[in-house]
């Protein structure tokens, strides 16, 4: 059992905290959910760019990553065998995400089968499937941020900026996935354009994070505690090491260097890998810093 059990004593300590840290979605099996969120974003973003460029290896890689994300989500559940019940899309963002992931996976696999096996990329059916897959990808990219943002119980997550941040990271993850496979693919994809996209989305994500933390630092007591966790508390190592160094500093530095002198494909792949590490740690750090609303009104 080991890593998949939460110490009882930790829970008892948490219950005594003024703003109790959330652990269900980040510790133990919760890591599988973070991995699922990370992989689904990368897969959806990867599919959007790979299919737009007609990059077959990228399309296949995206579908594999999406399938892995589905698996990670399933393994996180207390009862994976009941997954088919998650169809309540009217009010639940988890239900919407489940729908989006299924639509994306089904239409992407059908599109690949049609275009790879039958070689019918320009048929109406292929175009319809591609359109459907993009709709699914959009839903997958949008749902994750909203899953967190609707939780008024956790002030740090309860922000309309979070879905924007998650969409930006999903798109960037998609570009990073394509960059990662550049050395093995060679020609076929405009690497300068990819690198430019990576740089631009990376900058946007960095600005988004800055805005998000600035707003949260002056928000409610619970949100401020979470920002403290992120900057100098229990999520600081993940934030500085994963989000700032791997996710922002390395890609931006190489991106700027590449603008002056073109760098090797290997280095661009390394940038892709660093971006993916940063993408994972954004989700991890934000989940880790989440704290429940303190019940301060009663402490007067």
């Amino acid at each position, binding site marked *: *059992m080991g890593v998949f059990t939460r110490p009882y004593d930790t829970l008892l300590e948490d219950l005594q905290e003024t703003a109790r840290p959330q652990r269900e979605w980040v510790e133990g099996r919760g890591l599988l959910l973070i991995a699922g969120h990370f992989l689904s974003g990368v897969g959806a973003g990867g599919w959007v760019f790979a299919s737009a460029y007609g990059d077959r290896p990228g399309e296949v890689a995206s579908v594999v990553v999406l399938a892995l994300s589905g698996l990670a989500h399933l393994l996180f*559940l*207390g009862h994976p065998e009941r997954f088919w*019940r998650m169809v309540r899309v009217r009010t*639940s963002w988890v239900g919407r995400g489940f729908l989006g992931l299924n639509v994306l996976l089904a239409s992407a696999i059908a599109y690949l089968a049609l275009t790879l096996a039958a070689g019918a990329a320009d048929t109406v059916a292929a175009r319809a499937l591609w359109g459907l897959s993009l709709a699914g990808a959009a839903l997958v990219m949008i749902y994750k941020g909203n*899953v*967190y943002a609707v*939780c008024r119980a956790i002030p740090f997550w309860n922000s309309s900026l979070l879905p924007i941040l998650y969409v930006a990271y999903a798109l960037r993850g998609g570009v990073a996935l394509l960059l990662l496979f550049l050395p093995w693919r060679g020609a076929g994809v405009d690497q300068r354009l990819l690198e430019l996209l990576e740089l631009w989305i990376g900058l946007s994500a960095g600005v988004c994070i800055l805005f998000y933390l600035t707003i949260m630092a002056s928000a409610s007591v619970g949100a401020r505690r979470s920002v403290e966790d992120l900057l100098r508390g229990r999520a600081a190592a993940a934030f500085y090491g994963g989000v700032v160094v791997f996710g922002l500093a390395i890609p931006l530095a190489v991106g700027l260097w590449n603008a002056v002198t073109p760098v090797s494909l290997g280095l661009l792949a390394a940038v892709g890998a660093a971006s993916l590490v940063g993408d994972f740690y954004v989700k991890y750090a934000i989940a880790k810093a989440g704290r429940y609303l303190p019940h301060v*009104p*009663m402490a007067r």
Partner: protein
Amino acid sequence: MRYGMVIDLKRCFGCYGCQVSCKAEHATPPGVFFARVVKRESGTYPNVRKVFLPMLCMHCETPPCEAVCPTGATFKRPDGIVDIDREICVGCRYCMQACPYEARYFHDRTRYYFGVQGPTEYEAAGYGRHPTGVVMKCNFCAHRLEQGALPSCVVTCPTNARTFGDLDDPESAVSRLIKERGGEPLHPELGTGPSVYYLPA
């Protein structure tokens, strides 16, 4: 009919009777507290006082846990009680993140109070009703209400700090207490419409 509870903070002296009686009634495993008492200190020396805040599921009028549930396992009964269908719950724990009152617990695996010694007779008899892999919470002791009895925490409270009744009936004890003593729910700003009110200390 809408069941509700009023907790008089002036009467509560933090004996944990409600917490223990709830555990006894529901045979909840270690780490699960459908009813619990939060103790806080307020003020600075020498003007310090202890604040006791009994917590439980607030059985909200518009429960955020019910809205986010992807399977419909969390549902609201006609009498206002928010309950969980454990046969439908998939164990995603989204409801736990959405509940502002931290009233939900995930039962990840069977645990016993005495660890390796195995279950006591009481645990062996009681734990069977709590399947693993699902979320659990207070249901105002619905099984007791069906038999005409009050929730366990209400009958156990030695200071009668808890009053239970129908919030829709303006003549009920709960409605009168809220009106006369200025009862307030926890976090009214969230618009969840809790059915548990607190009378000021």
